[in-house]
């Protein structure tokens, strides 16, 4: 399999992370700046606003997307580091397989916790 496919996905995940983190910074921490630009989101850090977001399905989906891209990017990076010190094809396949399973497990558990938090 071409390595460039997995590398490109990893970079695409990093781009998604930059976009989501920019959204997070803009909405949560740069309200004053948005106000100057004529966009008033109200008191986004008030308790009622936090509770409302905690029930918003869009917010939940964004969390799960962030979980997926951060997991893929981070584990792909870790695989790169581990493959650098692996000179044996069998070990390479084993490391890739184990990281894949760890990623799936973390994603399933993280999604379960997120959905439970938003809907429970």
């Amino acid at each position, binding site marked *: 399999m*071409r*390595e*460039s496919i997995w590398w*490109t996905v990893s970079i695409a995940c990093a781009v998604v992370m930059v976009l989501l983190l920019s959204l997070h910074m803009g909405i949560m921490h740069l309200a004053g700046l948005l106000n100057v630009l004529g966009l008033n989101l109200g008191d986004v850090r008030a308790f009622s606003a936090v509770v409302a977001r905690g029930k918003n399905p869009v917010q939940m989906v964004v969390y799960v997307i962030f979980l997926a891209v951060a997991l893929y990017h981070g584990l792909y990076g870790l695989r790169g580091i581990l*493959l650098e010190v692996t000179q044996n094809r069998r070990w390479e396949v084993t490391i890739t397989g184990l990281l894949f399973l760890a990623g799936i497990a973390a994603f399933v558990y993280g999604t379960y916790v997120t959905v439970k938090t938003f809907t429970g």
Partner: protein
Amino acid sequence: MLAEDQKKVVFRIFRFNSGDGGAPRFQEYTVPVQKGMTVLDGLVYIKENLDGTIAYRSSCRMGICGSCGMIINGFPQLACQTQILHLESQVVEVRPLSNYPVIKDVVPDLSSLMRNHTAVRPYIIRLDDEKERPTREYLQSPQELEAYLQFAYCIKCGLCLAACPTVATDASFLGPQALAAAYRYIADSRDSGMEARAPILDTPHGVWRCHFAGACTEACPKGVDPALAIQLLKRALVLRTLRLARVQAPAPVAPPLAPAPRPDIPKAPEPTVALVREQKSEGVEERRS
């Protein structure tokens, strides 16, 4: 008594012989140095006057052959291009290039460099028959030449591999020299070898192991900039995978010359019968018409 413009410098040389099983050690030699003397000159002085048993590799002594790479005062450099006085140090420490096995003293075993270099097929690959049965020269514009020229200056000295932190940890990594050589041919408008080379380059120990430390570029004595070549190679491979690469036919051969007769130059005298026959057999008659 040393002349006014002479000073003494201590050469601290790594000594090791892979054949005798002894431990590596450093040995010191005092060398009288004049302006203009290179580290290679210092080694030659030691071998000829102080100790004939030291081993180093050199040939052209002018930065062309790539034989004399060594770690000089901590940096990978060509001994023949390093002025002793420019080091501004009383001690010149000379070690063999890092990331290679040592054969003897400062002579490294460059087999890995050559193996990786040949693995990327560092020559023009054509799908037509032009290389085996050449008819004419290839057409290449100055802009097309610029696309790869810088990367063609590599002299296979191996300094970049000695500087590369990834080569230090990953013995299977192709390394900056081979990756830059691959890009040099992929960027060449006469080449159509991307498909042949991609299975070697687009692998876990290929181009993707480069973290862009840039140490190769800093070390290269010929201004090749292997780090740039590797990033351009990454781009070319991603575009190929995404099927966004502009597929370009390789450079064609130059059209046959058809000299137009100039009216101000008188016609040549009629050829002799024998010449006419010869020209006809070469097709000259047809081209003129």
